[in-house]
């Protein structure tokens, strides 16, 4: 059963999806196969009554955990999704990897991988699953957040956003990032996965070794947490008690990493 708050979150996200679809001819959505962007995908199916009327982008850094790729291909088939895969082959050919610096690697393989794909396909709107409770700069985001010609985020001059009227007009060459999950917390995500029985990748569950992933990224920069949670119910129980930050297993968040990354267009 869904509680009234989850229903409100769903209603708001669905409204945002429909506004995005109405206003942007060339729209796409990022899917990393993690819990957030999978909930996002589910909400798209809610908004459009079982259909997903725009392509899903996956920025493949080549360092993803193999199970994530299997999961991606399976549901792309089952849910009849249009999948577009982007990869910064040039940077990979030159040997980019996390040992050359985490921020540098994220910028090259993720940020620039995404920017290149946006430029190539001419997307005007990109839907992403970022949440305000993940870290400080995301707490200051808008539902519809403009990026300039270089894909950069001008956080000083964010558009006003009131009464569900969003920034949907913009100059040629710029694009808008759309964030339907902004008001959701980590626990809301899991409660919704439970309420809707969304098939989620099993890396989030402990399989007897006493560890599980709480946040999924590239294999070298994401570490599992100590946990014996084997089911969605157990994860929700665990989250109710924890005071450890969700992204504590994500290396890129150290120091001022995220502000610098996000200013330059990181998700």
């Amino acid at each position, binding site marked *: 059963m869904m509680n009234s*708050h989850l229903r409100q979150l769903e209603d708001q996200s669905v409204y945002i999806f429909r506004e995005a679809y109405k206003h942007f001819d060339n729209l796409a959505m990022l899917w990393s196969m993690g819990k957030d962007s999978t909930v996002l995908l589910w909400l798209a199916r809610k908004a459009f*009554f079982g259909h997903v009327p725009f392509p899903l982008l996956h920025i493949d850094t080549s360092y993803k955990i193999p199970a994530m790729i299997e999961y991606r291909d399976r549901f792309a088939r089952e849910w009849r999704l249009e999948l577009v895969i982007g990869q910064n082959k040039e940077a990979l050919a030159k040997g980019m990897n996390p040992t050359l610096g985490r921020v540098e690697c994220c910028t090259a393989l993720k940020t620039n991988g995404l920017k290149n794909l946006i430029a190539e396909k001419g997307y005007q709107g990109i839907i992403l699953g970022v949440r305000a409770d993940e870290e400080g700069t995301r707490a200051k985001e808008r539902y519809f957040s403009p990026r300039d010609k270089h894909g950069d985020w001008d956080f000083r001059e*964010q558009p006003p956003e009131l009464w569900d009227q*969003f920034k949907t007009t913009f100059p040629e060459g710029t694009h808008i990032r759309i964030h339907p999950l902004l008001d959701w917390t980590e626990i809301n995500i899991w409660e919704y996965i439970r309420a809707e029985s969304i098939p989620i990748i099993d890396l989030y569950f402990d399989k007897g070794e006493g560890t599980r992933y709480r946040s999924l990224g590239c294999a070298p920069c994401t570490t599992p947490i100590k946990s014996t949670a084997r089911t969605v119910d157990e994860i929700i129980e665990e989250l109710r008690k924890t005071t450890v930050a969700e992204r504590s297993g994500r290396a890129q968040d150290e120091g001022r990493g995220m502000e610098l990354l996000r200013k330059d267009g990181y998700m």
Partner: protein
Amino acid sequence: MKTASAKATEHLNIVIVGHVDHGKSTLLGRLYADTNSLPEGKLDKVRDICRQQGKEFEYAFLFDAFLEEQEQGITIDTARTFFTWQDRHYIIIDAPGHKEFLKNMISGAARAEAALLVIDAQEGIKEQSKKHGYLLSLLGIRQVAVVVNKMDLVGYRQDVFEAIEKEYREFLSQLKVTPERFVPVSAKLGDNIANKSANMPWYGGTTVLDSLGLFRKETSREQQPLRFPVQDVYKFDARRVIAGRIAAGRVKVGDRLVFSPSNKSALVKTVEAFNVEPVPTEATAGQSTGITLDEQIFIERGEIASREDSAPLVSTTFRCNLFWMGRHPLEAGKKYLLRLATREVECEVAIIHRIIDASDLASRETRTIVGRNEVAELTIRTKAPIAFDLYSDSEVTGRFVLVDQYDVSGGGIMTEMVTDEHTVLREEARQRDIAWVKGDVGADDRARHFGHRAALVLITGGRHTGKSFLARRLEGQLVADGRHSYLLDGANLRRGLDADMAEEDTKETVRRFGEVARLLIDTGLIVVSTTNAFGGADHQAIRTLVHPTPVIAVHMSKAEEAPPPNTDLAFPGPKDYEAIAAQIIAELKTRGVLAEALGAKPQFHYSI
């Protein structure tokens, strides 16, 4: 720590506002720290950073995430933070207090249900303290608790606190806002934030934390009259789904809905949903839903569905209160895009009645512009009629934003409908359409059989400009192409339908002409009309009577001249009637009136 009463698993959005440097972010940081709500290690991490940079730790740094915010010691943009206390979940929005970031404050406050307004005890009530108070009332936030901060700097004196309370209560009473309570605190030292302060024994009220618990959840809009703004129409599969979010009231299978301003009407056949068992039969206020109708009526995004007996207002003109946050000043006479719920329409400011000074609520001299961060009382006129409510009757459909170039630049609430010159005819058309008795053949059936929708081609211009010649040529061409078209000349009504009338009663002549055009349109025809007797205002009256049928206005003149407003095609000088007729037919195609080609299955540009 005391316990506060609150309902389990309830969620509430709170905004913290107030003048710059009065301690909003510090209050928020302290609230988290004193209730052990921070993630493990967060406090130490920020303390470490401060030590490295050689500056004193401040609680405000916990949420001012941008480097620039910490360097300048101010909040630039609102942060959404999540806080749980006594089984109630809060989203607390920390809004910036600096004048320069007023639009960010508004973005934050617009989604709140209650507000904490912070005033510095030492500095007292400042410009933004008042402006924020005023904007809260404009944004419809009626639950306000005032936090008088930095009491430590005034020696925790009761008289200082009481003087501020008295002055600010007086100010708010003019806005008809009654604050729930005033709380004296020191956010920096933790007095009366989560714990009762020993430094102010004279204060018998609640702490900030307990004040949060006393805010009430907004009541649902379910009991209000139905308002369902159409967001989109989907045809991903066999279903034709009208999608949208219910602003007020409820909708259920079998309800008769009226769409405004088109006045179309149909019954709700199903309520659609994905992965919901059992299939729902109704949807209520706040829900993003989808419905199908028993008839394929043509409706578009922006219309508002309601019940027949409680429909919204429809006009082109209304009075409003508006705050402006645009880069450029708002100018009377300039064109802006108005957005109300899902409707978008061009508009202009007809009259700037007065600029309201938020600090003393006095009206300033009349002006032709409204500057950034100013509030004004205006009359706005839209290019086409819009459906709306007064803000006092229905919030979601009683407020709007103005878009200047690419940016949302102003927000306003409707305070009064102003009748325009067509109000009477519009009301007539509305009553007539709602009560219209339909046969079993709908507009979509006719369109499918005829290969086109109904439309009105309105040919205007002075005497001897070839209007009537063009009208005949166009009718002939359309019929030759296999379309159903009819020439309606005003002269044909004069000896018959209008035989009982004195000739000078143009108003009634125009009304009858419009009603005849409306009847012909209902038969599915493309009506080509021309008459010498009517002027520009009359053409507007005819449009009002045939609304929402597509009207293509064609203006003919002997020489270059300014065509009447809303003209689609103008032809000055010598004419090639063949070519003009072809151009009008092309325009009918562009507007989706004509199917591309005639055949068994015409492809329409529009959805029917």
